[in-house]
């Protein structure tokens, strides 16, 4: 194996292990959710209102657009058009931040409709899952900023590093979509 191929493999392995670890964390959360939900007589529990779908749907769209731009970053990097890559990266970050702002609005809305963190298991799950996902979004954003810093022609293994950050961003997107479907839609 060449030194170059080896260090590419190292980066890919490390990224995948990190993603598997985080996936296990979220899988545990969803397992708990499945148990709560299947053992509850009605869902949402008596006297609890569902969260309005507007903000979660908007968040989904915004995050999807952000992932689309993220995909464009790696496409441009592969074509060696780094200035285009920077432009798309800025858009990725912008829409990522937009998603986070929408999450803040969502929490506000839940609070003003009387759904507090301590108002039972439905609220516990909705708040805790979105918080934990948000914390990972912060990590994802830091990864994007790191990519912003290294997105230059002289960076070693640039393509591998770009695709690592990209995969991590997709992972966060996938987790959100599962949350959107299971927590808000159904």
């Amino acid at each position, binding site marked *: *194996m060449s*030194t170059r191929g*080896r*260090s590419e*493999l*190292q*980066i890919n*392995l*490390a990224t995948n*292990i*990190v993603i*598997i*670890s*985080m996936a*296990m*964390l*979220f*899988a*545990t*959360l969803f*397992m*708990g959710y499945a*148990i*709560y939900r299947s*053992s*509850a007589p009605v869902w*949402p*529990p*008596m*006297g*609890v209102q569902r969260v309005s779908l507007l903000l979660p749907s908007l968040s989904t769209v915004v995050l999807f657009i952000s992932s689309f731009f993220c995909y464009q970053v790696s496409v441009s990097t592969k074509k060696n058009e780094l200035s285009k890559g920077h432009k798309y990266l800025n858009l990725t970050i912008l829409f990522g931040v937009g998603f986070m702002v929408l999450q803040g609005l969502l929490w506000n809305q839940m609070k003003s409709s009387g759904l507090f*963190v*301590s*108002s*039972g*298991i*439905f*609220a*516990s*799950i909705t*708040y*805790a899952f979105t*918080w*934990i996902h948000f914390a990972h979004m912060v990590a994802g954003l830091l990864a994007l900023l790191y990519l912003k810093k290294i997105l230059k022609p002289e960076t070693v*293994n640039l393509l591998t590093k770009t695709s690592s950050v990209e995969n991590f961003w997709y992972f966060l997107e996938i987790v959100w979509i599962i949350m959107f479907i299971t927590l808000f839609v159904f």
Partner: protein
Amino acid sequence: MSGGYNEIHPEPTTFWSKYIFSFDHKVIAKQFLWYGIFFLGVGGLMALLIRWTLANPGVPVPLIGNILFSGSGGVVPPDTYAMLFTMHGTIMIFYAITPILIGAFGNYCIPLMIGARDMAFPLLNMLSFWFAFLSGAVLLLSLFIPQGAAAGGWTSYPTLSTLIGSPGAGQTLWCVAIFIFGISSTMGAVNYVTTVITLRAPGMGYFDMPLTVWGLWLTAILNAIFVPVLGAGVILLILDRVFGTTFFLAGASATSGSGDPVLFQHVFWIFGHPEVYILILPAWGIVSDLLSFFSRKPAFGAKATALSMTSISILSTLVYGHHMFTTQMSPLLTQSFMTLTMTISIPSAIFFANWLGTIWKGSIRFDSPMLFSLGVVFVFGLGGLTGLHLGTTTTDLFLHDTYFVVGHFHYTMAASVLLGGFAGIYFWFPKMFGRMMHEGLAKVHFWGTMIPLNGIFFGMLLVGYGGMHRRIYNPFIYESLQRLIPVNNLITTSAILMGFFQLVFVYNLIKSLLSGEKATNNPWEVGTLEWTIPSPPPHHNYDIIPVVKCGPHELGNPNLKTGRDFQYQTEELVQA
């Protein structure tokens, strides 16, 4: 961030970059070693306090009682007793065994034994230690806050661990400490897995790796997958305690929609059962190698040993329910978990037979690493066999939560891992520090550990079978248990004796470090890669990356004409 394969990092020159924030895997390994030995002392002292209380309820602790428990006249108070067994378990598992077996040996052995110059990600490696350090500091801090440390058992089951069961900040700090430790473990795991896959020396296939590396590698894989499960559990527990969510609150305490305390048990053991193997696999690997090295014979069925360890790692993820037979599980589930648990006996029996096959008719050298390895064979055998009683639903319903359980898991997780750890320390000390440990003192330490250790843990099996429950402050208020006082006294006396003989180890360690006999490159005459380079190895380990031509256990080959009875992994396998 990734370390190039062949590049030699410049040697650090300042004190800080050389000894404190070092990227060098050998220095990080030593940091983990001292960290682990420190916490081993703290956890051991706690064990002695627990044992003193059980053998002499209401009697002040001699020597240190008046300093530690001045409020109660030197007697361990009941709430402090709960904190002691909680912190003893937590410290021993996460802060003593994990750093020594995985942190120290993982860091030291993996790159050296596979012929690499460092880990794949040296910076991540350093961060892993400092996260562990932070975690340990948080845990120690929790001992000194008002209302004291966590007291819900190392398993921290709700409702004991919710605000109802433990109102103080201790339990929250416990959760935070465990979470940070999880991050540290995951960082380590990323490094170990990647290093083993990408940095093996040319010519080294997976089955040419020493079994030590196999054990550590499998441990790292399990770590990466299952530590985050506990991470999720403690995050939810923190949210319950700090933000008022109701994940683990049921009934009247949960206002609308019910949480589920038993869910935490599921989450805990989905992590917890693999964790048992996370702790024992490195010790199995070390022992599998050492038995071969000191019997001067190839490891019997080395490939089968590696594959059984692998299948145990896989099976370990499917059996966690056997910790929860008494939680009103469906009998269909208990039977499935029981059957899967019994299945683990098959690969365990394979590698156990391989251990015996390795020493069979060997020219055994009874040096201290070998003595400790043979100790592991004995105590792990006992620990494994007592596991059968607990994996079987019918007997477990009777034995659940008794000292039989305590005896069993101490035999497997404490005794074998401790002895395996000592074997490793005596074996690699010359390589780590360039000096030999005193062999006579090491032998005294072995017998002084081995005999009392069996007094303690076999005694626990007996009192448990006699019906004594764990975690009771004073079991002898129950008349039926008073007949167990003499055995409990035996256990405590053994514990004090064993504690005393650990001082011999500490003395030997310090003395050898300062003035031990200088070690040669290869004092034990074995052929794995780390013994081809000077003791201690230079900063970059290998001047030239070695090329591997044979397996790690080529000892006692009758065709050897070199005057040695072993050959190095860098030499072509000698054939007739």
